[in-house]
């Protein structure tokens, strides 16, 4: 990993990569309704269906869009500013998207694909950054890392890897469970491609 990356300021990926307040609010509403519906509240289930139908496609689109930008930002970080590497990583991410989402994906599948791709890119970047540090220690033993730092670093990588594997499983599960479920649940294949800006 090139040096200029190692010196990047904390928080550089935030801002455009955060979900908007409105998206967060809608997610919170869906979460509350899901909880009530799961507890047996029939009105909540009805309301949840309506919300999923009316607004979740837009929320999914926005989240997918953020996910796509995230993948690109991580690719930029991983490339260390080298345009060729950056382009190669963008191409790799596009290829992954196409292969994972498959033909005619639902909006939910698009989002879950973005999630898998972003988490893959994140684990790749983290592994590269950590490997660079270890190489530095091998070259210069005075650069020895403190045990607490190595532990914290491993925790972040482990957390990303765990989420990546869970994301792959989740996509497979959704495909299995929602196969044949009518469009009423918002899993319509119509308008699935591309995200809603914002």
């Amino acid at each position, binding site marked *: 990993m090139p040096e200029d990356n190692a010196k990047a300021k904390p928080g550089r*990926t935030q801002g455009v990569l955060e979900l908007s307040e409105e998206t967060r609010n809608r997610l919170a509403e869906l979460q509350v309704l899901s909880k009530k*519906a799961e507890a047996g509240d029939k009105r909540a289930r009805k309301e949840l269906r309506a919300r999923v139908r009316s607004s*979740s496609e837009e929320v999914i689109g926005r989240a997918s869009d953020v996910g796509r930008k995230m993948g690109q930002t991580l690719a930029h970080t991983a490339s260390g500013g080298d345009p060729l590497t950056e382009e190669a990583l963008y191409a790799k991410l596009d290829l992954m998207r196409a292969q994972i989402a498959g033909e005619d994906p639902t909006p939910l599948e698009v989002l879950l694909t973005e*999630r898998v791709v972003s988490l893959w890119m*994140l684990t790749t970047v983290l592994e590269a950054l950590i490997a660079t540090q270890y190489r530095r220690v091998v070259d210069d033993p005075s650069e020895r890392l403190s045990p607490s730092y190595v532990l914290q670093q491993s925790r972040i990588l482990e957390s990303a890897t765990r989420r990546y594997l869970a994301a792959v499983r989740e996509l497979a599960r959704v495909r299995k*469970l929602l196969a044949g479920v009518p469009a009423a649940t918002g899993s319509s294949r119509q308008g699935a491609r591309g995200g809603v800006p914002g």
Partner: protein
Amino acid sequence: MVASAVAWERRERGGRYYTRSRRSREDGRVIREYVGTGPLAEMVARSDRTKRELEEAKREREKEELERLEALAAPVFELSEAAEILTHAHLIAAGYRRRKGEYRRARG
């Protein structure tokens, strides 16, 4: 080993005596080392100070690096959680219930 605390002690007969404290590796007790006095002690004190400053700078670098890794991961983790909420909402709306992490068709 870098001393965790250092001090110059004043002696009754005059002059300063350089001491440093460190934690014992065997039983964890604090051990006070009497290093000495004069130019040699001054040199050891300077060396200890440099070591402490280097350690401090390293800790600061590691802290910044961890913050950077966390900042890289945070938005991806947030997206991941959002996807989870949306997936759950879809499955519940489609008539599933989650039991012990597994989704099953809800009865009725």
